[in-house]
């Protein structure tokens, strides 16, 4: 029995070791080296790359990435909660509604981001329509700013919020809501005093599932922010391309990973069960 189990786990274990853990270990090694003249790394050993993370120049970018991720998460929560509540309470037809959330969840993230470029750019649909209607004379600068980035992140990760929220709201005992109503609670009071406290596990899980990818996002800031929004994902990419500072890029990557791990561990401890 144990032999079979070992054989079953072996392929995945070796993929994880060689293609996930070993690469991270290499990055860790890189963080302790000096940048090479043409990219790459060289000796001597140093901890300077970690110290540079605290440089105000980079702290600003890290802080901004946190702020963008936090705002996107909050908007997702505000938009996602009523939607999840609606689906959870919509009876036998809720499977159709769930499909409508799951579908974009798996559909091409790239295409979904591109759709907003199509809508927002100077020659995009919104500006063309407003110009044609004579409402504006000049195209509005809708694309290539933080607003567009946050919009893209919210759009991209809203399903990550709705699905865990739905999972907790669906399990909510309807008789509790009836009890609250019988005891004279108004709908808003029922939401605030009964539904929200009972759905905290879903709120926590959904918020982390949105916050984590927003924090490390690369594609959305790059496409919808243009070159004008520097967040940590773009900063990491720059270190390995134009800036040719692999050790610092590695330190940034592992810094983000450390934050992600802390968040994940806090979630697992509180929910007492992993993502798996």
């Amino acid at each position, binding site marked *: *029995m144990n032999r*079979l*189990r*070992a*054989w*079953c*786990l072996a*392929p995945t*274990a070796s*993929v*994880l070791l060689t*293609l*996930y*853990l070993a*690469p991270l270990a*290499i*990055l860790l090694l890189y963080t302790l080296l000096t940048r090479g003249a043409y990219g790459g790394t060289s000796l001597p050993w140093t901890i300077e790359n970690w110290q540079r993370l605290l440089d105000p120049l980079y702290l600003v970018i890290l802080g901004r990435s946190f702020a963008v991720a936090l705002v996107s998460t909050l908007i997702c929560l505000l*938009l996602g909660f*009523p939607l999840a509540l*609606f689906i959870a*309470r919509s009876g036998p037809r809720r499977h159709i*509604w769930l*499909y409508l959330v799951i*579908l974009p969840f*798996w*559909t*091409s993230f*790239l*295409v*979904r981001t*591109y*759709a907003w470029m*199509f*809508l927002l750019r100077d*020659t*995009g*649909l919104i500006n*063309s329509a407003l110009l044609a209607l004579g409402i504006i004379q000049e195209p509005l600068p809708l694309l290539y700013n933080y607003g567009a980035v946050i919009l893209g992140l919210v*759009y991209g990760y*809203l*399903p990550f919020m709705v699905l865990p929220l739905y999972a907790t709201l669906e399990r909510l005992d309807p008789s509790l809501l009836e009890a609250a109503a019988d005891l004279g609670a108004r709908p808003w009071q029922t939401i605030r005093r009964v539904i929200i406290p009972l759905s905290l596990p879903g709120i926590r899980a959904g918020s982390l599932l949105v916050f984590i*990818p927003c924090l*490390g996002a*690369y594609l959305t800031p790059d*496409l919808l922010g243009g070159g004008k929004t520097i967040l940590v994902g773009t900063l*990491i*990419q720059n270190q*390995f391309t134009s800036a040719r500072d*692999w050790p610092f*890029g*590695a330190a940034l*990557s*592992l810094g*983000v990973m450390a934050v*992600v*791990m802390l968040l*994940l561990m806090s979630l*697992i401890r509180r929910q007492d069960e992993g*993502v*798996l």
Partner: protein
Amino acid sequence: MRLLPAYAAAAFLFLHLPLLVLAVFSFNESRFTVWEGFSLRWYRAAFSDAQLIEATWNSLLIGAAATVLATAAGALCAYGLWKRASRWLSASLSLSLVTPEIVMGISLLALFQWAFRFLGVRLGMHTVILAHVMFCLAYVVIVVLARLRTMDRSLEEAALDLGATEWQAFRRVTLPLLAPGVGAAALLAFTISFDDYVITSLVAGVDSETLPMVLYAIARRGANPVVNAISTLIVFGLGLLILIAERLRET
């Protein structure tokens, strides 16, 4: 509470309208975002673009290879974990799931640089496939494990009591029950692989440009209705796979 349905309608519109608008305008005669009549010219342009065709083949090939490998390894792993949990495996898989793509891409690039330096392995299709297997694995394990958890363990135990070997019990009892879950996992793995840009662009070589890489390059250059046409095809293609996957997960 009475406003909830109206709100939900607005939210679903927000989720789906951008893609619908994109699809509608992919049939626009005009190059600009003004409706000038129905036309298939952008689809014709897409299908006669050699670079796009080659990139699509690359994406399909990479997707197929990564799906087969990740599904085989991941389904076996889920079965093993179902028998008895493994803390470090589950933890590593969960972590891989939330690792920012840019970090995973960079770390794989660092690994492949070493592979080049010490073993002379260049970037190409094979490195892209390996990377895709890596990031599809956790999804496969989750989907298959979810399926296993709905299954009755005593079925396999009964088979063993009746004298089946472990392998026979797996092959004749568990696997047939598991098959829809494995199928769903494979479809989802394919959609994730087919769509990836960030990791792929970092570990791809000159011969392994994928469809998302070409789309990304065109989209960044400026408005081009050909991207609308390809995007529409991708959304409908992947959407169909996902609907099938969800059906399989429910059976």
